């Protein structure tokens, strides 16, 4: 088991799949000669050449549609959109072409593309480079949405996404590319559906995904050490479909639930998980579920305001204590 960074894990998945199958290609802005803004495709241009590691013009809707069209004729494109904020421009092709083509063709045509893109608040990037968009993607039938919280998932989810015949959107995070973690040396494929109990506990379930899993884990440590509360942490690496059974199983065990998300609460992951809890296991609850979410503002530039706009570990701890009547 080797330790590697999140970006290295993504790069390894690209490299293995591209060396196995000549029809796997990758495309995006600055991913070739420049090696990728987050290094996820570093060195691949030299290894596989410009026809398979493709620097695109800054035309998000155009090149995303080009990748989707290539997938219609047997190519397996991995499309990188440099920031999820730019994916708004490609929504037409992602939603109207990739997600709907299987259905509206009566199963004749499919779009086996992977679209990778980082979202989230990083280092004062301002309103148009810091948004979170997973809520938008997860509301669309015909599209899978996964979001890795560590290098192992980043590697294994991308491997499975490339081979899966559905379009898969992979929501990454700008702050996580340099995160280190263990990735098995042997090739492996992470399931695209389900959830993972990252820390087992009895008293409350903390649901997180991507970066918020880490707030939940550190909050669980604090809760255990300082407050005697034994929290379970569930990693929702699949946002579409959400793991209804996994969510219900954990809440049925702990009887309390909190959802932590970096995005705004409105119409979000937390809202959806709460709805699932209501539908699946309402009578198991000992307390009303709560959300820890971003303030509903465009992400500010100023460092203090930026920090204040998004939640963190302390917010998770505080919300749990309030739930237990200890705040």
């Amino acid at each position, binding site marked *: 088991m080797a330790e590697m960074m999140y970006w290295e894990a993504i790069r390894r998945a690209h490299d293995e799949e591209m060396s196995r199958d*000549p*029809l796997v*290609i990758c495309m995006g802005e600055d991913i070739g000669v420049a090696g990728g803004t987050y290094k996820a495709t570093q060195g691949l241009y030299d290894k596989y050449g410009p*026809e*398979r590691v*493709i620097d*695109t*013009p800054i*035309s998000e*809707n*155009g*090149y*995303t*549609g*080009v*990748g*989707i*069209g*290539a*997938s*219609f*004729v*047997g*190519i397996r494109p991995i499309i990188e959109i440099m920031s999820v904020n730019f994916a708004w421009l490609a929504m*037409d*092709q992602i939603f*109207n*072409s990739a997600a709907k*083509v*299987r*259905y*509206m*063709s*009566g*199963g*004749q*045509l*499919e779009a086996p593309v992977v679209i990778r893109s980082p979202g989230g608040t990083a280092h004062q990037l301002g309103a148009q480079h810091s948004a979170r968009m997973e809520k938008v993607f997860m509301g669309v*039938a*015909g599209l*899978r949405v996964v979001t890795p919280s560590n290098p192992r998932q980043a590697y*294994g989810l991308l491997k*499975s*996404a490339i*081979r*899966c*015949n*559905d379009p898969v959107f992979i929501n990454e995070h700008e702050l996580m590319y340099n995160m280190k973690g263990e990735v098995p040396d042997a090739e*492996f*494929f*992470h*399931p*695209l*559906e389900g959830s993972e109990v990252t820390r087992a506990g009895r008293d409350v379930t903390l649901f997180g995904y991507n970066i918020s899993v880490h707030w939940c884990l550190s909050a669980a440590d604090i809760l255990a050490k300082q407050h005697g509360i034994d929290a379970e942490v569930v990693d929702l690496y699949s946002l579409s479909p959400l793991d209804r059974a996994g969510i219900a199983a954990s809440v049925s065990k702990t009887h309390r639930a909190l959802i932590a998300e970096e995005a705004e609460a409105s119409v979000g992951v937390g809202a959806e998980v709460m709805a699932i809890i209501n539908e699946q296991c309402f009578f198991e609850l000992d307390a009303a579920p709560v959300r820890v979410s971003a303030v509903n503002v465009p992400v500010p530039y100023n460092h203090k305001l930026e920090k204040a706009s998004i939640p963190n570990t302390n917010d998770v701890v505080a919300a749990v204590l309030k739930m237990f009547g200890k705040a």
Partner: protein
Amino acid sequence: MKLEDKKRVLREMLYARRFEERCYEAYVERKIGGFLHLYPGQEACCHGVLEAARPGYDYVITGYRDHVHAIKCGADPKEVMAELFGKETGSSKGRGGSMHIFDVKHRFMGGYALVGGPFPLAVGMAKGIKLKSTDEISICFLGDAANNQGTFHESLNIAAVWQLPVLFVCENNLYGIGTRIDRSTAVIDQHKRVCGYGFPSVQVDGQDIEAVYEAAKIAVNHVRSGKGPYFLELMTYRYRGHSMSDSNKYRSKDEEAEWTKRDPIYILRDRLIKEKALTLDEYKKMDQTIIDEIENEVIRFCEESPEPKVEDLQKYVLADNDPWVKGGAR
């Protein structure tokens, strides 16, 4: 064009005309719902270009005015009409409708309803062809109004930079829904807009199938021989409204009458009659045979076909039992 081909294509174009007119009737009878965009007036565009290409082998993609393109690629007219009727036997099993005819086995890669949406998809198919080093080409049929979408510029640029085997066919029928081209578009001659992307573009009379065919032969040869993309602008006119919900108040009767004089079917018919390869009587007989064929075979098939089952509502959303969803075939 060879005489035999001209006669065959005349029949195909007349079939397309009668097929579309029958769609109109079925819509009025409420057998067809939703939006319905008909092709009469533009037949020489689709038939002229695809006569010069290899329908069923080359990849073809288009917008929502798609029935005739699908049939010319090899789709069974019964299945196309059944799709409009929303039947399980339809090309897209009743899930697509008029604007989303697909026949992938004949490489008709679909009709798409977002104006300009197919441009990048066509370029992507061309990229796939180039990667696989096969000799198909990708053909994208769209209307003039699609050229005001960003995808037009993004796609033409990418096709040119990457030197891809894609033929863009612009059927310039002078109207974007109900807005005349000079009220929406700075340059009426669409082929001129391609100059900024550095590949050949020509304008041709889209009502004369022989003119279309001759221009398309050059275009197809260019694209298939690896010289990169090509743009063909065909000047044409649709005799029906944009869709069935069209008031048709935006154009004059005089203009319609002028274009009716240049009906692509009559141009070819009269030429064949002049060349003594056809008599008016033979033409009328052929016309009646087509009308009967559509009624007795196509419409009957649709009437007798079952609708999709409600239990199957969620079929075709995602792949069935894809092993990678569970992390691979163990």
